[in-house]
């Protein structure tokens, strides 16, 4: 595999030709914000947080789906990009109910962390706060749609990694909702294998393990790298973080 040299935020870095800007930047310690991308899952390019400026291109490009190229000049952190990201985070906070103080992942939530990093300390928009259901019919897990940001990581991991396709998105626009099977309670889903992968990849407290109280839930995604790359790399022992 050939190597490409490019410039990201003023630094010259090298990357494999089939790498995306996101992963090349990540390998070099440049963290581009994102909520829908997760290594090991197919990409949706939906959250638009990882948009970057590429010299010579009129439009912003999503770093998670754009491959590196020789002599590419990328900027990931301009004031304009930061302003867009702040606005996106604000839109999410206004869209559904994300009160951190009563959330199981308080302190380990990707949305919360990003908001802090980007300096989003208040919301300038009218909160919509639709009253959405909380489904705790599953014996081990629950889903609180009020905390869902519709990143579809759960849908993608269930389909492409677990192979069950229990989850999908119903409705459209602001009425989109994650559903299991034909919309029956999760606990009654015939296709769910109760593997819990969706819970672990969920960036917020929307999908959670039962029995955790506020700020107790921590998510472990090491399984993804293990499943997706272990066979290829002949790594038969997963490196799991202690729980």
């Amino acid at each position, binding site marked *: 595999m050939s190597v490409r040299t490019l410039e990201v935020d003023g630094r010259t870095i090298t990357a494999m030709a089939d790498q995306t800007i996101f992963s090349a930047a990540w390998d070099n310690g440049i963290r581009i914000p994102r909520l829908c991308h997760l290594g090991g899952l197919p990409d949706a390019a*939906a959250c638009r947080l990882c948009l970057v400026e590429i010299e010579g291109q009129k439009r912003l490009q999503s770093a998670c789906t754009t491959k590196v190229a020789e002599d590419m000049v990328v900027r990931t952190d301009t004031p304009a990009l930061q302003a*867009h990201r702040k606005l996106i985070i604000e839109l999410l906070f206004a869209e559904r109910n994300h009160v951190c103080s009563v959330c199981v992942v308080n302190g380990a939530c990707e949305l919360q962390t990003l908001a802090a990093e980007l300096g989003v300390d208040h919301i300038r928009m*009218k909160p919509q706060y639709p009253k959405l259901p909380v489904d705790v019919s599953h014996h081990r897990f629950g889903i609180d749609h009020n905390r869902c940001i519709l990143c579809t990581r759960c849908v993608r991991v269930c389909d492409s990694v677990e192979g069950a396709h229990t989850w999908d998105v119903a409705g459209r626009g602001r009425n*989109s909702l994650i559903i299991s099977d034909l919309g029956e309670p999760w606990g009654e889903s015939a296709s769910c294998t109760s593997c819990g992968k969706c819970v672990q990849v969920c960036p917020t407290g929307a999908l959670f393990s039962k029995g955790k109280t506020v700020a107790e839930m921590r998510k472990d995604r090491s399984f993804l790298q293990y499943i997706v790359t272990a066979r290829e790399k002949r790594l038969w022992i997963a490196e799991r973080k202690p729980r």
Partner: protein
Amino acid sequence: MTADGLRQSREAELDRQSRLKNRIACCSVAGCLAGGGDAVRAALAEEVKAQGASAEIEVCGTGCMGLCSRGPLVRSSAGEITYAEVKPGDAAAVVRSDLDSLNGRILRQSDPFFAGQRRLILANSGKVDPEKIAGYIAQGGYQSLLRATSEMTPEEIVAEVKKSKLRGRGGAGYPAGLKWELVARHPSATKYVICNADEGDPGAFMNRSVLEGDPHRVLEGMAIAGRAVGAQQGYIYARGESPLAIERIRTAIDQAQREGLLGGRVFDSDFHFRIDLRIGAGAYVCGEETALIASIEGKRGQPVLRPPYPPESGLWGHPTLINNVETFANIPQIIENGGDWFAGIGAPASPGTKIFAVAGRIRNSGLVEVPIGTSLRTILFEIGGGVPEGYEFKAAQTGGPAGGCIPAQYLDVPMDYDSLTGIGTMMGSGGLIVMDTSSCMVDVARFFMEFCMDESCGKCIPCRAGTVQMNEILGRMTSGEGKEADFAMLEALSGLLVEASLCGLGRAAPNPVLSTLRHFRSEYDAHVRERRCPAGSCRMGASA
């Protein structure tokens, strides 16, 4: 069918028509049918029968004759007269050509509404019955497909379309020839041709009328495209909301297949081409080409990131040519008369004619076909007859929810792709909604934003949540609760949607807001700072 068969079929129909004393063609597309056109046609047929004139007078249906606001329209070939606002009780007078009793409802081709137009795509309207293939063939239909399959190589067809400088009529105006060339040059053995008939702009009904009024023209254009790019399968993706168009396409496909004009070995050549119909189910976003492809594949109509573009990887991953109805409808005449002929019509950089659906606050509303580059003033005031008495023209909205408005000071702007982009709007698919002094521009912006919010697919955050907040702000402004800070937020959100949305729907959603802010800022100020609506027509009403 063979070349001889086509000629014979044409001559037979022309001969039949020449032996008629009169052909009474009743508009049979949605607009006039909604006004009672069916009953009028039945009454006319009954009257002809009662007079025992069935052998010499034919009563038939036909495509949109344009002046929808005065429908139902009926055209009589004897004397080339069109009657407006015909009621079943007028049947005897129409059949007898009793002009006196139809006084005031007689339209002639020399009237400004007709004389100001140049009808090429709508040439068959008033002449051809959309439910009969013979009528289309009699007007020279399928001759171009014959040429394309027997006299021209695929390369020559593409070259002719490139020479014509035809630009896609779906809105963006991408040169059709370049798109065709991309697909034609692709080495893949499997390719598709898709006709985008998912015309969803509220207030736009050009494509629908073309399909309802002259469906074979579109089929012929698609088949020529199939021959040019090397595809054997075409799809028409039609709106589920247009049942009549769906019925007409179905009938036309069946007829063309039965006559051997579609299917295997067209005109005894090695060219095979099938067309199937796919019906949408109520999603505006499916007009976006990647969403449309997803929908044909049986999925949620959500756009996917481009590139790759459809000419490279489209339907089921194969190279796919997508053009809209009006683009395909232009093809037969380009093959018939040559690319140079076409390039000489209209504006040099965007040749040909364009159909506009003119509606709103205007006297003559309906379908108007003019050379591209005709001024807005000509369309609205000469052809359209101006705004109703007692009001003044304020703006025309083009491009639907993705477009913008044209204020009075730009009335002389030529209606072509580049000029419209230059003044902050776009050609779009051809909807032209007229606003007068009684229309509130902030409310117009709110109307389109609400539309985009309802039609957002929900995949990307800027569009899904951004349209909700923009709608919220505009709703506040039109109910007298706007705040000064709303302006900054409206602009910030517009910037986000334009730059960060995944697909064209989100990127274009702020356009009506940006355009009304640009031209009618004072109306916004009146709403927010003075708590009054100058037009007195939004939710705030006329109260000060």
